[in-house]
């Protein structure tokens, strides 16, 4: 019980840090996060409208960098409410029970001057899977930009009713373009 309360306390202490935009926080208004799925050969790309995160990138010491991204699963916008509602259902994201998909880095390794590989845990729908994401870094006028993509297996995270499997590919590509607050 004590540990549980301690967690709560820590969480409350952390809240103000998350709310105030600081250097290293990604700027959602300049960033994009999309998922591209394939249905009967047709590639369709749709955005997540709400996400947040923090990329503490240290170009001089890349290994010391960290990244944490949180995505609101209910914010996936397929362009029509009936489809958005479908995706929030239990069989898909189950957004009520699992409102957030989270990536948290465990180690970051430089791959040359403007590239790194972020290894970490991707948690979707309560399932955590270790993943590695190659990321390219670019300094732009708007802030530091982090670009990359990752291929996710829907089945791996239990996303989607099997009835859809002959229409919808298992593999979904998530593209991200994150810009840090300056």
């Amino acid at each position, binding site marked *: 019980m004590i540990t549980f309360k301690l967690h709560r306390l820590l969480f409350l202490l952390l809240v103000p840090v998350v709310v105030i935009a600081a250097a290293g926080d990604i700027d959602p208004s300049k960033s994009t996060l999309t998922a591209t799925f394939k249905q009967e*050969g*047709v590639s369709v790309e*749709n955005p997540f409208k709400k996400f947040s995160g923090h990329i503490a990138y240290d170009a001089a010491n890349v290994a010391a960098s960290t990244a944490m991204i949180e995505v609101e699963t209910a914010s996936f916008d397929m362009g029509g409410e009936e489809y958005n509602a479908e995706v929030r259902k239990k069989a898909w994201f189950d957004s009520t029970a699992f409102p957030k998909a989270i990536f948290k880095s465990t180690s970051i390794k430089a791959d040359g001057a403007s590239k790194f590989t972020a290894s970490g845990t991707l948690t979707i729908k309560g399932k955590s899977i270790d993943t590695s994401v190659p990321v390219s870094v670019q300094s732009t006028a708007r802030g530091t930009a982090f670009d990359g993509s990752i291929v996710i297996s829907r089945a791996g995270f239990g996303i989607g009713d099997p009835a859809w499997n*002959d*229409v919808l590919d298992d593999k979904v590509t998530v593209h991200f373009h994150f810009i840090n607050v300056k």
Partner: protein
Amino acid sequence: MSTSPTNAQVERYSTTAISLHWIVAALIICAFTLGWIMTDLEVSPLKLKMFNWHKWVGITILLLVIVRLLWRLTHRPPLMLPMPVWQRIAANTLHGILYVLLLLQPLSGWVYSNAAGYPVVYLGLIPLPTLVAKNKQVADVLMERHELLGWFLLVVATLHILAGLKHHFVDGDATLKRMWFKS
């Protein structure tokens, strides 16, 4: 009815033209039926499949109508049967509108699909060029236009069918017969 010319006397359309006419007619019925049902369905794998079938049928119609126009331009259709001038003008106008609608309707569907963020992949195999970028506002307008054109096509096609039936059953001439296969 006894005054109607026999098959031998009537110059009929070429077998190619007749085949294309009836294949396109059947495909239009398919496209309409699919369009009607799929838009009322709840989100399901079947709904998505039907949308794809609808698109494939539409693109097939577009291709066949282009073939029909090319065939018509290179092969003279039979002369019109004797009929009042107003009927001749009405028939020609109706046929012209039908050709235009049969080109516009699949095109508007294709463009709408693109605007909605869905590229068209013919038969799930051949990706067609994306004609317009994804844009919700544009998609909403195009969907309305596609539906409106569909209604217009339904009206014009109905007139076309009624005129054909009138020629066959009321006038007893060979207008319909010459668009049917040799028996």
